């Protein structure tokens, strides 16, 4: 974990209520895709945890949805600096992805899968991506995933874009043969994947948290192997340890 100031390079909407924030600064604290940062916002007691979409030596990209006053405030920041705690959480374990991992993102659970996908492609682990959204207005990053050279399917619940239905419906149209999956999205989606895919999965969870680095015990959950803190021992849990 590192605490550092980041310069806001851009912060623009890319879908309905969804913003892409590009930051410049020391990303040395980030060690795995699927980790998150915790952003200090003036006027708010707690920081706002946001997953990292992608990063390099010079900066990072965050994608977030405005769901409350904090994220609304963040969306209005177009310049200046932000105080971030970076490299929080465990992230996805690339060594457990196998040779043909399937990546599944639901809504604003999609961003961390992009950084993961990029690194899997670099390692020659050709994968497929399935993204699920409620409606056409919510869809983002389809082209960015395609640009990585990865087969990308989009499903919308109301059928207004791509395949009509849920991510599980889209997965049915793909050939079988995946050896693992990585997913981030709403809990019902994660559970549906866990129930239908009979391969090992890494699932990224969300929970209300205060500190984001494992001390307040606000985001604890029970697993088959004892209690875990979503912020520190997670947010990524193995499909075989989750108690639904």
């Amino acid at each position, binding site marked *: *974990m590192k*605490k550092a100031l980041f310069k806001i390079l851009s912060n623009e909407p890319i879908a309905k209520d969804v913003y892409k924030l590009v930051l410049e600064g020391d990303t040395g604290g980030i060690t795995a895709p699927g980790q998150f940062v915790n952003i*200090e916002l003036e006027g*708010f*007691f*707690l*920081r706002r945890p946001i997953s990292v979409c992608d990063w390099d030596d010079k900066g990072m990209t965050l994608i977030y949805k405005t769901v409350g006053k904090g994220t609304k405030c963040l969306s209005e920041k177009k310049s200046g600096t932000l105080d971030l*705690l970076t490299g929080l959480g465990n992230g996805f374990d690339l060594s457990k992805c196998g040779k043909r991992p399937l990546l599944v993102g639901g809504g604003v659970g999609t961003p961390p899968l992009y950084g993961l996908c990029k690194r899997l492609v670099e390692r020659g682990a050709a994968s497929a991506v399935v993204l699920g959204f409620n409606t056409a207005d919510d869809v983002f990053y389809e082209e960015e995933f395609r640009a990585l050279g990865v087969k990308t399917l989009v499903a919308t619940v109301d059928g207004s874009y791509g395949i009509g239905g849920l991510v599980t419906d889209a997965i049915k149209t793909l050939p079988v043969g995946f050896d693992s999956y990585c997913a981030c999205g709403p809990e019902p989606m994660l559970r549906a994947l866990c129930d239908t895919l009979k391969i090992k999965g890494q699932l990224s969870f969300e*929970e*209300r*948290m*205060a*500190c984001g*680095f*494992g*001390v*307040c*015990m*606000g*985001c*604890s*959950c*029970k697993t088959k192997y004892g*209690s875990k803190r979503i912020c*520190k021992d997670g947010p990524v849990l193995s499909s075989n340890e989750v108690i639904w």
Partner: protein
Amino acid sequence: MADMSVVLSGIKLENPVIPASGCFGYGAEFKDFYDLNILGSFSFKGTTKEPRFGNPTPRVAECTGGILNSIGLQNPGIEAVINEELPRIAAFFKKPVIANIGGFSVDEFVYCAERLDGVEQVGIIEVNISCPNLHKGGVNFGSDPKAAAEVTAAVRKATGKPIYIKLSPNVTSITEIAKACEDAGADGLSLINTLLGMRIDIKSRKPLLANKMGGLSGRAIFPVALRMVYEVRKAVKIPIIGMGGVASAEDVIEMMMAGASAVQIGAENLRNPFACKEIIEDLPRVMAELGIERLRDIIGVA
């Protein structure tokens, strides 16, 4: 050079800054941020006889200037703390720690105190009779002078270590309870614990916390904490560790002027993991500005 040292029941602290229980775990996460030996001491996560998972989530909620929590004392239990956490702490913290204990019965407090009595690393036992998230069987030791005195007297017999009773602000008269603890043999008092509060999600029309209510901490409660430390200081002779919304070196000084011999920092650690380090580093500057040579000279001057 500024003298920041203070003394709590014969234990000399290099400075009065102590991370508060529940906001610092057992120190392991913070040791990666800075050398914890700069701290006066630290009070570890409230520990009970048996391991506890705590209350259902969501169990944290934000509000203006603070945070509500209904964690419910998640901890690995006293045996795991003695056999695993304390040896781990010994590797990165060379000073005496403050052992915070919680319980649902007098016997449980006594059990934990007895188990910690022989542990050299423990400098002070802080007895949490005031967690607002525990009300099993309707007993709330922190809100009744007789019950507070009963726990204090029993723990007093169980250990030779200094015992500090952590008091609740959710009472009609905190001085009455403070005096009852002093009379029952407490070496000191820690105050205040969190203030019972609540938030409602106006979209779902339901409480934000699964437990409905929770304890409020953070900057918002500082004036309340300060007032209570001030009142209790006038009522008892034993030392007070002041806490509640302390977020800066100036707050530390203000809390000491109200009557605190040492100061704990809680919720501020959750928003800034370097809070205690920054406050300790800033204290000499603020002392110089105010013409304070020895910090302990200002205790209770207000």
